[in-house]
């Protein structure tokens, strides 16, 4: 059954505006809308449900405390939360202090990913692109993204030159972008 609530970026924007005026109901709606994305990303990185719940809590509390950090002009809230979550989860995994504040995370995403159906289609497309990527490139991108390995660590592990690893990671990201431009 379809949700009666309005979907899309404009609905997200209204809810984030609600956060700015202290609307706890808006927070609950945003949680219901995006907690599955945030939790899935955190769990994929951390592989531990307790640690993933902690990151989930931290990410949404950050949004509650500082809703103005989300720049609605640049991309969907779901995408922004996914990036914030991945970075926080990697920081947790690597037991390091966060170096990038959420205010500094500005991103630009072309597709509208505010609805669950759109996100499901996008996820399918991403998995398709990753599936046809050269194994070495896919591996470098996944090690960097999901394990938070530096290019030096990846080079050490794979025996590839540093420059090759760097180029593969960037080319992998560009391949994803191109898939959504066609």
């Amino acid at each position, binding site marked *: 059954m379809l949700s009666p609530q309005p979907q899309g970026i404009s609905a997200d924007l209204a809810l984030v505006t609600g956060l700015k005026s202290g609307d706890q109901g808006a927070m609950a709606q945003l949680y219901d809308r995006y907690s599955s994305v945030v939790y899935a990303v955190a769990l994929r990185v951390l592989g531990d449900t307790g640690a993933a719940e902690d990151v989930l809590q931290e990410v949404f509390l950050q949004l509650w405390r500082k809703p103005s950090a989300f720049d609605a002009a640049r991309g969907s809230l779901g*995408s922004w939360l996914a990036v914030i979550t991945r970075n926080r989860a990697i920081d947790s995994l690597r037991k390091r202090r966060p170096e990038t*504040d959420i205010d500094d995370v*500005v991103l630009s995403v072309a597709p509208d990913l505010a609805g669950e159906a759109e996100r499901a289609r996008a996820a399918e497309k991403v998995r398709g692109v990753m599936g046809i990527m050269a194994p070495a490139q896919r591996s470098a991108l996944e090690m960097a993204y999901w394990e938070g390995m530096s290019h030096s660590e990846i080079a050490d592990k794979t025996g590839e030159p540093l420059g090759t690893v760097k180029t593969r990671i960037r080319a992998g990201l560009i391949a994803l972008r191109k898939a959504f431009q066609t």
Partner: protein
Amino acid sequence: MSEHEQFADDLALYALDALRGEDRARVEAHLATCAACRLELEQLRGDTALLALSAAGPRPPQRARKRLLDAVAREARVPRVAQTSTHRSWWGWLGWAATAASVVFALWLWRENSALHQGLASLSSRQAESRRELEELRRIAAPILDPETQRVTLVSTRAAPQPQGKAFYLRNRSSLVFLANNMPALPPRKAYELWLIPVNGAPIPAGVFKPDAHGSASVVNPLLPAAVEAKAFAITVENETGATAPTMPILMMGAGE
């Protein structure tokens, strides 16, 4: 290899939050002065978002929702009421605002000119570009126009008083616009570097710049850590790639007005 190509691979690593130390500082110094690379960084972060969305798994347990909403209730806040500022005269800043506006306008013209030379573009991509440009202008103007902006004038610490810089720093947005004039010419491969001196901790790099033939220069929205309280701003001469710690002597310095 163009300057942008030189940074292309490192920008991807930066988007993944995977650069540390000198590599990170070098990219941030470049980003502070390169709007094209800042846009590319936003695109790359968007690409990483697509990757994140490929994660699939179970929904979070119900207790996580209650835990969050309980925490939110404990932190419930009263809506902020906009205040009308009456304590500060804006007239003294009009000249600088006009200068800043001209910088913004020049940036806009430059971008428009570049766009024209790139030939035909689709209507949809132009609309998207226009929206980005407007947003960029809004972001640039915010630290100048916001009543909460901390304004700092930097003057030469030496006898000659001519060089002058104005820093417009909006702490709650980590936005900074710096405008300078009468800056002396630099030796080859050297540049000025602006530093945010926090109340606590080491000086933070806030952009590398070179003056034009008239001694004028600007730094617009360099990447800064969030919400750092600035005690002062300072300028040193560094290698043109920038430094992670200031090299003495400090040429100019100023605290809040």
